[in-house]
């Protein structure tokens, strides 16, 4: 990156370290922190949407839809989330390729032949002649879907509980005013449920932060990948030879995650304080008595 870094072998001490930490692979390592933050920023709203859909379906009056919603919320209870992280991306990929195979290919050959999954070249996702970034973006997208499915189910649990916690009398009053079920949902149920959902959702946010290193399992070049790659022993064939430094890299990641959860906790504390202001709850009452309002 810097001009004086062009010959690493001649460097020593602090200047060696400076050049080492700004090498092109290290810049990719720093950029991968952005990947993690992007995953958090993209997944959280999508998962919330999935969760909302799941919770609404579980409350639906239409039996098959209700069953579907209940099954969706129940599935994460008994099955480890990692199984979903392994299953969803590959299942999604094969499902899409199979559909494209049906539409785009003119061969009648089955896609499963023995232990192979064969589709014609036109049905490949992404196309084999597409540039590298398309492959990476596709991998990242399937990872986002996997995270959204799992965390959507967790969020559906939280939101379903929050919807059940809204006092029944509130909804009955709204019905007595002649509101349709849709109006009751939109005007009374949804605005009121957030107070009950906030503790569960903030818990979920912490869990989501702590699930991001699982991107590594999905084959994304994330911070765990780069920490292993950069920390491993480098012989003198490399520009910057060093012994096994994985411990220090993982220590760095640990501190990054501790910082992320710590700052989230602080923000959530402020948020719940703000939200319980003037509420007829224990926390709101405590604030009133303390005279902080």
């Amino acid at each position: 990156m810097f001009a004086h870094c062009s010959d690493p072998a001649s460097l020593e001490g602090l200047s060696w370290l400076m050049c080492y930490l700004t090498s092109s692979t290290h810049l990719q390592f720093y950029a991968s922190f952005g990947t993690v933050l992007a995953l958090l920023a993209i997944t959280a709203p999508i998962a919330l949407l999935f969760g909302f859909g799941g919770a609404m379906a579980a409350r639906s009056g239409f039996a098959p839809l209700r069953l579907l919603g209940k099954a969706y919320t129940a599935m994460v209870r008994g099955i480890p989330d990692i199984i979903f992280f392994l299953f969803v991306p590959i299942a999604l990929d094969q499902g899409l390729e199979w559909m494209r195979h049906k539409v785009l290919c003119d061969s009648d050959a089955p896609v499963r032949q023995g232990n192979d999954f064969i589709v014609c070249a036109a049905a490949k996702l992404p196309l084999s002649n597409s540039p590298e970034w398309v492959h990476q973006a596709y991998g990242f997208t399937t990872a986002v879907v996997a995270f959204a499915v799992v965390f959507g189910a967790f969020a559906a649990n939280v939101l379903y509980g929050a919807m059940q916690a809204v006092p029944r009398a509130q909804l009955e009053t709204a019905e007595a005013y002649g509101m349709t079920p849709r109006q009751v949902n939109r005007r009374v149920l949804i605005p009121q449920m957030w107070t009950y959902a906030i503790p569960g959702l903030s818990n979920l946010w912490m869990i989501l932060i702590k699930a991001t290193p699982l991107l590594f399992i999905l084959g994304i070049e994330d911070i765990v990948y780069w920490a292993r790659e950069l920390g491993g022993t480098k012989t003198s064939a490399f520009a910057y030879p060093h012994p096994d430094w994985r411990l220090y890299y993982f220590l760095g990641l640990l501190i990054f995650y501790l910082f992320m959860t710590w700052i989230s906790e602080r923000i959530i504390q402020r948020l719940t304080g703000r939200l319980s202001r003037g509420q007829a709850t224990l926390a709101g009452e405590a604030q009133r008595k303390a005279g902080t309002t």
Partner: protein
Amino acid sequence: MSCAQTFHDYALRSIGIGERLLPRSDFDLCQQVVLIGSGLIWNLYFGIFALFFGFFLANALAVAKASANPWLSRPANGFIFLFRGSPLFIQFFLAYAALVMLPKGGINFLGVTIATDWLTKAWGGALIVLILNTAAYSAQIFYGALQSVPKGDLEAADAYGMTGWKRFRRIVWPTMMRLAWPSYTNEAIFLFHATTLVFFSAFPAFQQRGDSLYYASYFADKTFNPFVAYPIVAGYFILLTLSLIALFGVMNRRLNRHLPGATRRIKYRPQLIR
């Protein structure tokens, strides 16, 4: 090959008994069910031992955290923050990177050589990480329960002249357990779920002796078909979760047996994963 033969060859494959080579072609359903079930031995091993040792450590940590002495409460707080604030996955990697740095031949301490090689193996190193991790999560649960022990109970104990250890053992601790048990059940379930991470993090599966998810992903990779192996391992885990709920439900009833009608059905609330 008949299914009985497959069972004989692979039922204990994950602990090194039976056929050495894993099936390489012509995978049938029986092989997948047997081998993935064989991997479940490792999940049970990690789960049961981590839960057992973690339980004692968690009790000590919870009491230390509630202590008025800052020399006790601060380290306990720090420990709980460290293990609850960071991902288990990173903890595995970090522990492995630290443990392989120990001298291979063991540490010579006052003339006694302490072996270190077992720490880099999954059964040793990963178990220690799991124990510490579950201890931190459980300690937080126990601490919360300790804080909600009714004041009246303590006053009654005082009136009987109970103090110190006797008061803790007879009054505080049983109530703490009773209050913490529903949340602790969830922690136990998630601990068992977390055991699937061991062989996907740094710890190598020696001679392909892995846990159930290790074998499931082996089959999914070889057959290029995720729709068979993963549902099988999911099925095993649903059974495991249900039996855990039943087992902890029995203990819950025992803890509440002096309070007729107070046994709350343990509601499974998946709020803790790492």
